[in-house]
């Protein structure tokens, strides 16, 4: 099976290709604004994973898997976990304890918002941890869906 038979129709493919960047940008927005608006790493990561799942559904698992290997997704996920732990450990050396918020008051992400303001450059380590968890969830959920879909297609053969 070369993967052509599991594609959906051209209409579905076009709509999926249109929706994919929009969904991905919305996911990055939710992750980046995790310390300002409702949402955060987990929620934005789930949105981003659903964008990749949309591509998998429309174009077929095999065609997506050629471009986007599940090893790479797994590496992306592990990188997110590594960033989380390393930033947490930096809290021991640069501040008081594990997971301490050592960036408050510094130049990067250190601004404390005034009344009614929501600057992106605030929150200390929270934006970094949000990005790490977002990477983790995007990579992990899409890798799981891709693997399960591959197994299902192999069973049909």
């Amino acid at each position, binding site marked *: 099976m070369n993967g052509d038979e599991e594609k959906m129709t051209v209409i579905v493919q076009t709509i999926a290709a249109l929706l994919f960047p929009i969904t991905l940008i919305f996911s990055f927005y939710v992750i980046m604004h*995790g*310390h*300002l*608006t*409702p949402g*955060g790493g*987990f929620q934005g990561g789930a949105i981003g994973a659903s964008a990749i799942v949309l591509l998998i559904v429309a174009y077929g698992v095999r065609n997506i898997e050629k471009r986007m290997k*599940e090893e790479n997704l*797994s590496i992306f*996920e*592990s990188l*997110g*976990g590594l960033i*989380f*732990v390393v930033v*947490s450990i930096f809290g021991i050396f640069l501040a008081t304890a*594990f*997971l301490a*918020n050592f960036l*408050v*008051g510094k130049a990067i*992400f*250190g*601004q*404390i*918002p*005034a*009344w009614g303001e*929501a600057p992106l450059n*605030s*929150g*200390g*380590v*929270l934006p970094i*941890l*949000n990005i790490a*968890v977002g990477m*983790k*969830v995007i990579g*992990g959920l899409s*890798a*799981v869906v891709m*693997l*399960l879909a*591959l*197994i299902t297609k192999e069973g049909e053969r």
Partner: protein
Amino acid sequence: MKKIAFIVFFAFLLFASIEMREFGKPPSSVKEVFPNANYDVTMDDRIIGKYNASAEKWEYGAVEETGANNVVTSVVFDYRGYDTLGEATVLFTAIAGVMLLFGRERK
């Protein structure tokens, strides 16, 4: 014996429910909950923070301590950061399990 235990436990429950504050009414001051606190603000101000308009800065609360507007995020990633780390570990373990079960052989 069981009846005595039941009566004692029920009495505790009854006294506890009498001592409870009115449903839905937050404590009006920190001193009501923490009698040794050396400042006197409302409980909401203690948690979210109190904005000092004249000095233009936040006092006491999560916004001042973490610098994040979203107090829920500051709880999830800062005050209860270990919980989030554990949650991420659960996700990692689940994905590692799926990879072990369904991943194909590498050449």
